[in-house]
């Protein structure tokens, strides 16, 4: 079945593999070839780049693209969608909460004014449901966030259904009382709201599982880290029963020239392509070559789409041999400034952040190795909170949810925080506590049937971002206990990193609202044990906030690549860091092509230089900017990481 005959195409995969480019190019191609089909390209990534890819401004409203009459684009902005949703259903949701709990109007309003962690995915599901309901489009192309958060998005319809069930339970109490006192029950707007939400979420869930209408297309680069991540993604898709029939293998080097840089890269890729063919043998493989220029704007997107969908051969500038290049490569790729200034004795927490696929994990790992070597007396912890971890793949060692000592290095530890598991444990603990509290009461011959079930199920209402708060608490626990001296944080891609940085404040706002209630109802309910735990958690979060904003203890390192789309994302990140008051003095521009003399590399390098100049012009006064070279091989495994570390921190 062709892509044009489907109703929903989802492009996903590791950051920097070309999800957005592929989604936009396929959208543009199908719109041109099927003028009667109405196509919408939607981005659910909080760090949007659909507009940058089409080279026009796309907002949170459905925007027509170029001169095409049947192509539209939309970038979902969670906050705005949430505020629209709230405005529309605020009174109904409050009514349900008021009916189902013992809180008064004021208490409920306090809670409703707070922001919800993990809002992006929830609003994406609601927005898609709205679009489906309107039936305005024949085909929706969804450009997703990097893997970790896409997995979360795909599981959300099921979770949201649970939310509706809990709200229905709250409403049941009201229905019961109405029937009891008046003898009958007439459905009202709250019932209608629950019915509507249930139907909408069901529609999204059904569409995702529909093997005929929906297809998930993973986009992959022939790199070990991307292959591992895609393997995990496909396993999740199978679990959710979402159909995936083909894979796009992007950025395949096929220059066939004599440039040693290109040929080395090609050789590495050949090995990985073999693994891909073996690992994903059951899927249809589409191969796309690496282009010597950025894919931005309608013309280049069409060129990309023709290669992908028509199998059109591409004509890139032929490579030429350059004299004595092989020996010159590493002298060329030396960074112009010393990066060693980044390593400071007093800094306790380093955060590496940037767009997906810019090399955050490699640089964070290399920094951790260097730190452990320079300060043998200090204990270093390298950790990640991204649901799609890649430390294990980067080191080539099994680093899991438990503190793992990196082989042969006594003072370096790795940790991939499984925040999902932590959240599950917390939910279990909560349910046990509630059950215990009610059992005490029940022992005296009294039961509160509705409230017991509502309170037990209330934890199912947890927003999807709560797991990240749990991860944060774990790190603060280590800091509190003084377990490590240096913490190196390999973060998620920009969009979700920003959400993560907002998290401490959101958590504290929620805790403050709970404290207010506990003080207000201290004569009625006394949850001493729970209150003490919440105070402890609030202190941890406050401490984390203090550390994050303290320039003597925390350093944020922004990583980018010399490409327009990555630069736009980097600018957003820098602005957000200023807003959060998180100290950041360093920008690393990674993957800068060396002067190889090869035509293919030169064409790419020319574009890179333009972007680097722009970055320098805009940021040189406020930040230290370092360029890191692109290596003709993958940086994977301790040996290569050590080599990489030596080259950048020489």
């Amino acid at each position, binding site marked *: 079945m062709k892509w044009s005959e489907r109703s929903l195409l989802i492009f996903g995969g590791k950051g920097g593999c070309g999800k957005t480019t592929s989604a936009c190019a396929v959208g543009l191609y199908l719109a041109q070839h099927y003028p009667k089909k109405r196509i919408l390209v939607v981005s659910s990534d909080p760090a949007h780049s659909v507009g940058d890819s089409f080279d026009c401004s796309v907002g949170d409203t459905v925007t027509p693209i170029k001169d095409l009459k049947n192509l539209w684009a939309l970038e979902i902005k969670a906050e705005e969608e949430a505020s629209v949703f709230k405005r529309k259903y605020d009174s109904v949701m409050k009514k349900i909460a008021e009916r189902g709990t013992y809180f008064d109007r004021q208490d409920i309003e306090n809670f409703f004014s707070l922001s919800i962690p993990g809002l992006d995915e929830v609003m994406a599901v609601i927005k898609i449901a709205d679009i489906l309901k309107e039936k305005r489009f024949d085909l929706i192309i969804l450009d997703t966030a990097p893997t970790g958060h896409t997995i979360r998005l795909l599981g959300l319809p099921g979770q949201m259904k649970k939310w509706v069930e809990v709200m229905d339970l709250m409403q*049941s109490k009201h229905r019961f009382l109405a029937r009891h006192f008046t003898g009958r029950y007439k459905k009202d707007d709250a019932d209608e709201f629950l019915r509507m939400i249930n139907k909408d979420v069901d529609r999204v869930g059904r569409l995702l599982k529909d093997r005929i209408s929906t297809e998930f297309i993973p986009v992959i680069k022939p790199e070990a880290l991307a292959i591992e991540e895609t393997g995990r993604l496909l396993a999740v898709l199978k679990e959710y029963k979402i159909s995936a029939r083909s894979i796009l293998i992007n950025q395949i080097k096929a220059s066939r020239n004599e440039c040693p840089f290109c040929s080395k890269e090609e050789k590495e890729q050949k090995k990985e392509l073999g693994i891909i063919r073996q690992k994903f043998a059951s899927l249809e493989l589409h191969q796309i070559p690496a282009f010597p220029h950025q894919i931005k704007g309608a013309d280049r997107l069409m060129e990309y789409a023709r290669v992908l969908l028509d199998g059109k051969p591409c004509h890139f500038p032929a490579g030429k041999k350059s004299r004595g290049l092989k020996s010159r490569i590493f002298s060329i790729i030396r960074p112009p400034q010393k990066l060693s200034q980044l390593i400071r004795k007093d800094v306790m927490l380093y955060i590496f952040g940037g767009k997906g696929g810019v090399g955050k994990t490699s640089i964070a790992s290399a920094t951790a190795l260097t730190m452990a070597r320079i300060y043998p007396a200090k204990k270093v912890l390298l950790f990640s909170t991204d649901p799609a971890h890649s430390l294990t793949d980067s080191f080539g060692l099994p680093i899991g949810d438990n503190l793992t000592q990196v082989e042969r290095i006594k003072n370096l530890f790795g940790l991939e925080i499984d925040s999902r598991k932590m959240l599950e444990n917390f939910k279990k603990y909560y349910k046990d506590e509630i059950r215990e509290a009610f059992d005490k*009461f029940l022992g005296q011959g009294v039961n509160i049937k509705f409230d017991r079930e509502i309170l037990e199920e209330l934890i199912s209402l947890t927003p999807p971002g709560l797991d990240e708060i749990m991860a944060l608490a774990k790190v603060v626990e280590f800091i509190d206990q003084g377990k490590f001296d240096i913490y190196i944080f390999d973060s998620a891609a920009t969009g979700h990193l920003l959400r993560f940085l907002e998290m401490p404040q959101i958590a504290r706002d929620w805790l403050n609202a709970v404290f207010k209630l506990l003080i207000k109802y201290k004569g009625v309910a006394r949850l001493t044990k729970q209150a003490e735990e919440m105070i402890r958690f609030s202190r941890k979060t406050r401490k984390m906030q203090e550390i994050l904003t303290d320039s003597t203890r925390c350093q944020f390192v922004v990583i980018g690549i010399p490409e327009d789309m990555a630069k736009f994302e980097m600018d957003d990140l820098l602005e957000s860091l200023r807003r959060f008051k998180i100290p950041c003095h360093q920008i690393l521009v990674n993957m800068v092509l060396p002067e190889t003399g090869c035509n293919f590399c030169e064409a790419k390098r020319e574009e890179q230089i333009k972007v680097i100049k722009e970055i320098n012009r805009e940021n040189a006064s406020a930040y230290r900017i370092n360029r890191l070279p692109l290596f003709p091989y993958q940086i994977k495994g301790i040996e290569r990481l050590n080599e990489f570390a030596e080259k950048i921190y020489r």
Partner: protein
Amino acid sequence: MAPKKKRRRTKKARRESHEAELGRKILPFTAGKLPFVSKTMPQAASVVPLVSKEIPPIAKTFPQFSAITNVTIPKQWGKMPGKKWGASKIQPSRRLGAKRPKDIGLFNFLGKLITAPYQPVEMVKALTAAIHAQAEEEEDPKVALKLQLLELKMRREMNEISEGNYKIEETKLKRRIKNFEQKVKVTKQPKKKRKKKRR
């Protein structure tokens, strides 16, 4: 002389003559009869229960009292099949004023009717016991001080008081708790000594 009554041929004779006419033996007609049921085989009604699932005694799962006003049910009314309640599938409690269901025996009903007025008293007793326990706890100065300390911590987290003021208040409260604990120790010790002297 009355004509001789024609003797009716027996069933067997009729069949035999008919067989003679046909020139073959007629087999007994069995179609339409129920299949043979052995005496040892259980009857269908005893194999298939009327209710597919055994209903657990509801008195165990049902609350004796519901906290919702006027929704009190006697414990022994449990055998009533409850209505399913909306999507949540919660079985509702029945109110006291409900009519007697058909499946409850008169004797049983009368018994419940007599004990019903006393049952709310039990609930009130249980609640007052809980309130009493809480009041006793609150009367304990140590508990009250600890609660004050907890509230202070919450107010600090909410940024209602500054770190400096929090420290002052915290030390005050902690000192009071410590003093109280010491007092309790002192008052307990002499009693033991006196007992020893008497011996």
